[in-house]
Each structure stands twice: as C-alpha cells, then as structure tokens.
C-alpha cells in the first residue's frame, strides 16, 4: 500500500516539497549563521530596502535585514507550528473518531455530539480571540490553539471510515476468531487508514501554517521569533506594497503557497489511489495515448 503511494508521481512531488521545507526548518538557522554568517535581524546600513543583488540574493527589508535569511529562519517558526498543530490535531482526531466509530453505542453518541460542537464553532474567529487573549504566547501555545480547531473534521472522517471497516468481512472474520478489540483496531482497521491519516496530517499541517501566518499578520502570533507570517506582517506594516518592495513579501508568500500546493498534490494522488477505478482507467488511457503517440511519430517524420 505504501509502495503504491510512493509510485504515484503527484504524491512523490508533493512529499518531496514537504521534505524540502522540513529540512529547511531543521537546518535553516544553522545554515544562516554558519554559511551566510548573518542573522535575520542583522542590519546592513548600506542596503536599506534594496532589491535582490549578489550580496543579498533576495534583497533587503526596509530596516535593512536580509530577506533570504528571514525566509529561511522563518521556515522553522511556520513549519514547526504547522507540524505540531497537525500532530496534535491528528492524534485527537484518531482518539475521538476511531473509538467512536468502532465501539458505537452511547460512547459514539457522546463523542459525535462533542465533535459536532467543535465543528460548528466559528473556529478562526475563536482562534483569533484566544490568541489575542494570550498575547505573545509561545509558538507551541499557538500550535495548541490551532489544533483545537483543526481536529473535528478529521475525527468525523475517521469515524465513518472506522465504521465501514468494522463491518467489512475480514474484520468480522477476525472478530469471530476471538481476536481482541484492541488488535482488531490496530491490526485490521487502522492500517487501512494510513492514506487518509497522512492526507489529513498534511492538510492540518498546511492549515496550521496558514493559521499561524494569519495570526502573525494580524499581529497576535508569536512575538520575538521570525515566521513567514511575521515577515509579511512587517512588510505590510511598512507599506512594502506601496513602495514596490515586492522581494520582501513575495518569497514568504510563495513558500506558503508552495506548501499548500504540495498538500493538494499529495491529496490528489491519494484520491487517485483510493479510487482505483478512476486511476486504472486514467493509466490505461495514458498508456494507450503514449503508445499511439510513439507509433505516430515516425510516420510524421517520414
């Protein structure tokens, strides 16, 4: 199954981009200080708000900081918040959705009501209020708040998936062999949800990055540290758009967009795999098309 995922080119590209950003988040600060010999807050008084040049590959901000250094270091702020919120959201979604779907009954009623309550809350507005209330919170608090509003959708998906897998013949067969509930969940049901869970995780990750950027942009994100959101927020605060300093806000914006595209790619790929009729038909058509193209070419050449 995992092999199937990795064979899909969309999934591979998406995961590749993801891995690249993860690497950036892990090694970025070290790279900036050890290789670029600078920090995101170092001010170059000779280059205030300068466009990209050999010295500053992505130009400088109006106060004179290197944009590239900021974007690289900012990756850590953004991606860490995203990943932490995604891990939390996925774990909560699994802890609520899977037992709810597998055990059913009164527990299911309770957990479903709980999930629906969160689902109907105006999540971003509340995130905003809470984040504003805990002004200047550490990055993991922001992650926690984002996760709190990110999990309900996933819990609902996992619940319905679990319910359907619980009734499948192979699960029933193992149950009627005397297998314990725990093993049924972990060995028969859960392995079938790796695709959904990983798609969910990536989606939550990007949602976390977005939410963090939005909060920072509004000035109520983490204070002190740099993230893509804070860069854009600063650019906005100093009228970068009006002054035509595009190199200031475009790179962090592109990074966010790229991460979003990567998730979309992985999700498309997983969709293709879990909807085999679609992909098989596509693949067959593609093959026929390529073969036709190959045989047609020499004739055209002649």
């Amino acid at each position: 199954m995992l092999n199937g995922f990795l064979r899909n080119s969309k999934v591979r590209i998406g995961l590749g981009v993801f891995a690249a950003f993860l690497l950036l988040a892990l090694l970025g600060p070290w790279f900036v200080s050890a290789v670029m010999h600078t920090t995101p807050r170092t001010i170059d008084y000779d280059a205030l708000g300068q466009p990209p040049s050999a010295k500053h590959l992505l130009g400088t901000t109006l106060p004179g900081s290197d944009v590239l250094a900021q974007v690289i270091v900012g990756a850590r702020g953004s991606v860490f918040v995203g990943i932490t919120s995604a891990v939390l959201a996925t774990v909560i979604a699994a802890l609520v959705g899977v037992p709810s779907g597998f055990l059913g009954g009164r527990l299911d009623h309770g957990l479903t009501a709980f999930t629906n309550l969160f689902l109907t809350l105006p999540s971003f507005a509340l995130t905003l209020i809470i984040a504003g209330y805990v002004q200047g919170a550490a990055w993991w608090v922001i992650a926690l708040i984002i996760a709190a509003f990110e999990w309900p959708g996933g819990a609902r998906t996992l619940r319905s998936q679990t319910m359907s897998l619980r009734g499948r013949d192979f699960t029933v067969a193992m149950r009627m062999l005397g297998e314990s509930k725990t093993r049924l969940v972990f060995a028969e049901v859960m392995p079938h949800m790796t695709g959904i869970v990983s798609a969910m995780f990536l989606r939550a990750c990007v949602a976390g990055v977005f939410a963090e950027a939005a909060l920072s942009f509004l000035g109520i994100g983490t204070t002190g540290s740099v993230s893509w959101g804070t860069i854009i927020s600063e650019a906005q605060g100093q009228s970068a758009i009006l002054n035509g300093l595009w190199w200031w806000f475009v790179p962090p914006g592109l990074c966010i967009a790229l991460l979003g595209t990567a998730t979309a790619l992985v999700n498309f790929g997983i969709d293709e795999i879990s909807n085999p009729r679609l992909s098989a038909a596509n693949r067959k058509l593609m093959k026929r098309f390529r073969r036709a193209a190959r045989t047609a070419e020499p004739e055209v050449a002649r």
Partner: protein
Amino acid sequence: MTAPVLEATNLSKEFPVHGRGSRGTTVKAVQNANVTLHKGSIVALVGESGSGKTTVARMLALAYPQTAGTIRLNGAEVSHARNAERSYFRQVQLIFQDPFASLNPLHKVRYTLGRALRIHQRTLRGKELEEQTLELLRKVNLTPVEQFIDKFPHELSGGQRQRIVIARALAVRPSVLLGDEPISMLDVSIRLDILNLLAKLRDEEGLALLYITHDIASARYLCDTIQVMYAGQMVEGGPRDSVIQSPKHPYTKLLLDSSPDPGRSLRSGDTGLFDVADDLGEPPNLVDPPSGCQFHPRCPFAMDECRQTFPERTEFPDGQWAHCWLHQKDRGHVLEGKP
C-alpha cells in the same frame, strides 16, 4: 442418533428498516428456523438469494444476536457475554461467501493464520508456530506450503484464497464449520475441489458442517441432509435422497425441476452452472410478507388455508418433514404429477 453438536430452535431475526417514514418497521429476514448439526455430517441449507441463508449462518456464528430463539452448543444454551462468545468462537467457525473480502489485503498468509492459531494458543511462537501454520496449509491442500505462506491475498486466486479462509477457520480446531455459499464466487473449474475438501474435513476431522447454497445441485453432491428455505422460513428438510427423490413441498419441487443434472453441471464448464433458473417468479417482500405460507402467491396448489396460516410441520417416516397444507389436508399426492 448421537446428540447434536449445534442445535438452533425457533431462530428469528428482524432487521430494523432505516429511512423516512419507516420507523418501527422491520425486515423479517428469518422466522422460526430450526437447524441441527451432527458430528461428521453435512447439512445443506438451500434457498434462493434473499431467503435469509446468510442471516441464519451469521446468527449461528454469533455475528449478531438473534431476535428470538435459542442456540445450543453441545446441549448448553449460548449466551452473548464476552467470555462465552470467545469459547464459542473456538468451536464454531464461519466461512464467508466472498474470499476476496474476507482476507485482510494488508496481511500475508503467515500473519492471518498465525493470529488465528495464537488467539487460542497464546504462547505459540517461533518454529512451533511456523510448523502449525504449514500444517494448516497442508490440510487445505495448498502445496507446496512454503510457497504460499509468504503470499499476500492479492497474489492468490479465488480458490486459493478460499482455502486460506478455510485454513484460518480450522486454526482454532473447531467442531462446527458454517459455509456460507463457499463456492459461489469461485471459478467453475475449482468448485468441485473445494466441495471435496469440505467432504474430506467431514470424514477425516469429523466436523459438523452447514453448507449453504442457492444451488440444489451442489447440495445433492455434498450433503447428508437437505433443508430448504423460502423467504425466511424453513419449508422442507430431511435425508438427502428422500428430499431429492420425493420432494414434499411445491417449492422444493420447483427448485429441483429447474436445476440442471448434478453430474453434468459439476463437470461441464458452462458458467450458468449452479444457478437456479430465474423463472420461479418474484420472492415476497420481507418487510410486509404475505400472510400464511409465504410461498402461496407462487404456488400452483395454493388453497384458502395457505393464505391464512402457516402450516404445521408434517413428519414422514424416514425423517423427512415439510410445512405444507397439502399434507395437512391429505392432498400430498398432487405433488407426484406434473405441477
């Protein structure tokens, strides 16, 4: 005769109907079914699709509780308490109809059979586990065994998968096997092999078997006793030869008349094999079943009584029985002629 291993009396199952405006209504999938299984003997349960055969098998396997009736295993009434269920599962195993759905596609044969073995022999591992797994494969004639143990289900054919499913059921050393149309989804060419395997398990392991089928020809080939089910009710049963040679219920007769010759159908390669002809008319709606005998709308001999009450059981000297007003009214002779 010896005491039965598994005995179900007056088993009924109603499924609630979901949807708008249907609160409180139910599908009467099975009504007052009796099933008795003996060691070393095969009972065939024959009926067309939708007659409630799977529901009977699943109730007997404790997949879900019955609405009414009792199940007795070795004379003791079965409860649905957790621990009681576990020891029941050790005795009674179900073989599913669809071998493509009943094996987890993510697990190798080694895992599936290994788990089945270890559920009831917790300390089993290593060489001993491997040896017992191979032994199971040998028992279901999947040789060379070393080649099959590390295969995934998708690497196996339907017949091979069904053998794995049977091996998994055998892993707990059950005394009863319930086969829910175990050959209906398989290629014609391997159906006979699976039937012979079941016969071998009956003869060599002394298993009590319930063989469910919609095709009376395969029942004739395999079983010792036949029971015929129609629209959730058992309409006739008895020793195989008596039921086949002198059916006592019009529905059984219709089934037999529309079934191909068994010898030919089991060996020839045409795909229509084992399928009961479709010209039997429509089965009744089980949400709002007809009163009396469910078969009366399709029965050429229907009388007034048939439309009002379900007939009592009529017993015949050789153990055959039927629920039909014809015998209650001493008109059984009409079944001898052409309907």
